[in-house]
Structures are given as C-alpha cells and as structure tokens.
C-alpha cells in the first residue's frame, strides 16, 4: 500500500542524509522523494512515498522520528490524502502546431511556462499516473527534455 511519510527536518544536509540513510538501511521500496522548504525558517520538508505494509511503515516512522535533526514525522496512506508531483516538459513546437499543443494542455490543465524559439516548456501538476498520461500525449510533438519532481502530499483525514 502506498504510504506518504512527511517529515520536518532541520534544514541541513546531514539531517536529510540521516533520514534517507535510515530508509536505505531498511531497503524500503521508495516510489518518490521530494525535498523542499519546511513550514518555518530553518526547516525542510521531506516527503517520501513508499509502498509497504502498515507495520513496516509504522516501525520506519518510529525510527525516523528519533533521528537527530528530524523535528516531526507523520504518515498516512496515500489513498487517504492527495499526492501530487510536478512535471516540466520541453517539447518541439513549430508555429503551425502551437494551437494543437494548447489544446492538449487545456485537456490536462497544464500551462505553457516558457517558449524558446520552436519549443515550449509545459508545466503540469498531478498524480504520477496523470503526469504519465500527459507525457504520452506530448510524445507526438517530440519531447526534448523533461523533469519530474517527487510527490508532495497532504492527508485529507487528520494524520494520527
């Protein structure tokens, strides 16, 4: 079952290293990692999506929670919340196909965020599956480059 682990860390690489090291040590099947700023200055937020059973996830949480540099750690099944990743895709767009690209973007609620000559960089947020579907839809234009973030997640129910 996909679980989201959401950690507030001290904003330093050692704390991140410790947290990720604990996951590596347990050899967990990590689906994605996302690191960004935390809620307050000096904090970082690490979101981990991991596919594992409830007991393993709980044990991992307790281990993570006691690490030096980990300020708080919560978890919830992804199905009880929302998890979204961000994708930036650079495609080849000759002027005559520009309208067609905008149609595809419209369908997926994606935005064109930069337009280098004969190209476009498109931004999309969504679940992993949604992003993949979008990427597939863009393949007809020719994808030059793309990058996807790990998922960030929030619970719909209050986290325990």
């Amino acid at each position: 079952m996909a679980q989201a682990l959401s950690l507030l860390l001290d904003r330093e690489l050692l704390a991140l290293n410790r947290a990720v090291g604990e996951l590596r040590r347990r050899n967990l099947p990590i689906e994605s990692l996302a690191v960004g700023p935390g809620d307050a200055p000096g904090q970082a937020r690490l979101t981990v999506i991991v596919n594992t059973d409830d007991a393993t996830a709980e044990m991992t949480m307790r281990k993570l929670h006691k690490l030096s540099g980990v300020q708080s750690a919560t978890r919830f099944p992804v199905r009880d919340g929302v998890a979204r990743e961000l994708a930036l895709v650079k495609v080849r767009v000759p002027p005559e196909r520009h309208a067609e690209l905008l149609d595809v973007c419209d369908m997926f609620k994606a935005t064109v965020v930069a337009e280098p000559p004969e190209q476009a960089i498109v931004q999309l947020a969504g679940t992993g599956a949604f992003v993949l579907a979008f990427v597939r839809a863009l393949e007809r234009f020719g994808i030059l480059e793309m990058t996807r973030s790990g998922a960030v997640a929030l619970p719909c129910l209050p986290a325990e």
Partner: protein
Amino acid sequence: MSVAELLSGAQILCRVLVEEGVDTIWGYPGGAIMPFYHALPDVPEIRHVLVRHEQAAAHAADGYARATGRIGVCVATSGPGATNLVTGLATAHMDSSPVLAITGQVPRPMMGRDAFQETDVLGITLPITKHNCLISETRAAIAIATEGRPGPVLIDVPKDVQNQKTEYRPVSGVGRQVSSARFSLTPDTQHLTPPDDRVRQAARLIAAAERPLLMVGHGVILSGAYDEVRRLAEKTGIPVITTLLGISAFPESHPLHLGMPGMHGEVHVNRAIQHADLIVGIGLRFDDRVTGNTKGFAPRAAIVHIDLDASEIGKNVPVAVPIVGDARAATARLVAAVAPRRCEAWIAEVQGWARQREESYCGDLSPENIVAAIHDAAPDRCTIVTDVGQHQMWVAKLYPYRRPNTHITSGGLGTMGFAVPAAMGVKLARPGEAVWAISGDGGFQMNMQEIATMVQERIAVKMAVFNNGYLGMVRQWQQFFHGGRYSATPIWSPDYVKLADAYGIPGWRVERASDLEPVLARASAQPGPALVEFVIEQEANVFPMIPPGATLSEPIEAEPAAAAGD
C-alpha cells in the same frame, strides 16, 4: 559577571569539557587535532590517556561511560584516527552508551579536496551515532549523548576552527543547563510519563497470570531501576530473567533470579519463556540472540514492554501492553499498581526443568573452576569486563554478580577486542575497585597493545586470557553446523608470560586447577596491571545452544554426535 576572554576554538573546547565535568579523556594526537593537544596541557583538570590505537580510546570511553553513567570522551585526529574510532562508536551505539568523540578535521578551505588525512567521518559515522556534526556546541553534544536513551555523538572540528580566536564567556549555574530538546531530538519520548491506563492494564495482567516472568535488560542499569525491579519481583513473586546486558541488574543470589535467556541461556530459563503466559520486559530490546526465531518465541505469552525508546516497542515481538517511559519511573508506577501475589507453583515447575550442566570438559581447568576462582580471589567490589565469544558466555552464566552494573560487555555489536581497552575505562571510573578484563586468545590479541597504555598510565587492570588455541565460538559453530571444518579458527598465541614480561608486568600461565588459587591471589594482590593465561580444553563447547534460526524450544544440550539420536 563573567568576563569575556579571547580564546582559540581548541581552548574553548577544553574549557567546555571541564565545565561539563569531564575529568578523563582517551585519545591519540595527529595533524588535524594538534591545536587541541596544544591547549590541553593548560587544563590540569583533564587527565588525557594516550592509547596505542584509537579503537581503544573509543572502547575505553565507552567503558568509562558504562561504569559512571556519565559521558565518556575520546579524541582522534582526522582520517585514519577518525576511522579507527568507528568500531568503538558502533559498539557504544548498539549498547546505548553515552560517548563523545571529538575528531580533528582538515581546515575548512581544504575540505572536499582529498586533503592529506581527510575523510568524511560524518558520512562514515552517520548510522552509528545518535548525532554527529561539523563543529558544534560541545555542551549540546554532551546533552544529546546522555539524555533519553544514551548513545555516541561525534563532533568533527576543522583545524582552522580549533585555531580561530573568539570571545568566550564561561557559563555557570542555570545558564549551563542545555537540553538536547533545543536540537529537536525526540522530544516526546524523553520525559514521557507512562499513561495510567497502560500501567493498570499491566497490573491486571500480572494479577491474572499463572506463569509470569520478568525479563530485564540494559535499560534497568542505564536508569538505575535496581530497587524498583527488585520490589516488583518481591511484591509479585515473579521470577526474573536477566539478558546479557541486564546481568547484575538483579542479584544472582536472589531466590527469584532465574538466569540468562537466549542462544546460550540455560534450558529451564528458555523453557520458562516458552511456557510463560505473561512476560514483563523492562529495558530490553528482544534482540535475536535473546528470542531465537521470533515466530516461535514465547508462544503463550502476552508481552508488557517497558522501554524509553518508542521505536523498540513491537520491533521484534508483538507487544500487548506498550509502556513508553524511563524504566525506573515506569517500574515504580507498576510496583504501586500491582497487588501482592506469589508464584510458588510456577517457580517450582521452572526449577524442575533445571538440570546439571553437561560436563564436556577434559582435565580439571574448567570454565566453572576458573570463573569461581576469579570470583573468590576478587575483593567484594569488583567489575568484570568481558570480550566476545565462549568465555563471555561462560562468565555471563557462571559469575555470581551481586552488585549492580558490575558486568560490562559488548552485547549488541559483539565486538572482539572490547574487554582490554574498555576495562581501562572502567578502572579509571572506579579506581578503588578491582577490574578484570576477561578475554579469549582471539579477542585479547586484537587489542593487547593496550598493556603499554596501562603501564604508562598506571591503570591496574587484571587481565585473564582463556587460551584454547581456537577462535572458540566460531569453531563451535563450525563443529555443530559446518561439518567440523575448522576453517581459519586455529589461532597461535605468543607466550603470554613473556609478553607480560616484555611490558614489565607480572604474568602467569595456569594449566591446572590446583594453580588457580595461588596465582589469582598473587595477581589480585598486584598493585599494577597483571596478566593470567588459562590454558583450557581446546574444543570445549558452550552448552546449551539454540541453533541460529531455531526457537528457544530447540536447544542443543550435548556434543552433536551424542545429540544425534535425540
């Protein structure tokens, strides 16, 4: 009131150690830590012990910490000095011992350029320290190491930081109170009061149980819960099992004391676990050497688990009643909550399973005789530090520990070479008491260079070497589980009497039981370090033994050939 002084980073480090009550440090100088060593002679409050290998510094600091409950400090230079600390830090980490390691580091502008003697010691020690960091407030590092569940902390101090001058104001009184809480370290478990309903639930289980057991571990020693555990046992009549690191937490002579469980636990102890309907575990982590195969561990028992570290609850065995909290406070609450009861029928049943130890010994110099003779020759106040292997199990099972925290060993990591350097730390922590380092011929040869440290620093550790010419425990496994193929386990030893002589200390070789008493009497009477070698049966085994992967119900009780028909 305090006046600011302009001090170097190294001088500040020394000052803070003194202000934190550190009186002894163990170390080895080198390039990147030289400013610290330059400042050290101006600090007479701190005794520095020059070891012969940095591993010994870490073990000695660990021994000192285990004996005092206070921070043990070791110091090394960058690169090889720092990497040599690794085994000692991992040992302290596994056994929850508060050790502070201070390592020199190349100057900051050189870091990451593969400078001479540069190594990423923070990266290396990340998973084996409770906390580590570059530079840092030393006070906070000590607080983190000692608060909550203790553990080692490493601070890496670049040489330019040691040299850099800055204003320093000594802190005293209230201002000195530093809490690791400032550093966001598990704030919730440290001062947790166990919930009343959990304690009441545990008390109800104790009242209803027909075959209850207490299992106590290192947490009882770390929190000093001796009286509380004893009161709990005496009020309820529940027999007490002590894990390897829980030995000496409960007097061996007490009628309720059962013994050590697990891989080399006595048959009646393990059988008690397998028949128990309730296990109250206090400050132990249900390690695999204790439980055997967890699938078959204590199949009839509900488990009440008291531990300071929430991540230990349910880690290895399912727990019916978790009580997260300090062993001493939680046990005291439980004592107040339980109703007095007795367990006579159950104890009689367990005692009925006890059997005479299988004597697989040729000659009269048996482990039983040696351990008894060491005990008889030792003064009342004596701490035994053991290494890892067969002798460790024999001593754990046979030495009649009476006083709390007088058995110190590397349990979790199983570090051969631990005993000799750790005993130095224990000896400086308890200068008025006898300290024996008991090793096998394998482990002794891993750190015997520290005899030189003992001589130079006048550290009067008595060393015992159980010499059977084999890496005995590995050989035993080879005999039992690898078809008797003694691959790489025969081990040659130097002449230990001559070795002792070369270091200028008295040494004896004991080959007959009749020599035990006179030799141990003379060794004990020595004012300085002394070495006694016991030439024991080469292929003696530790019985009983639970094979790896088997349950506690499947002990090997005799030589494999004899046991084959069972």
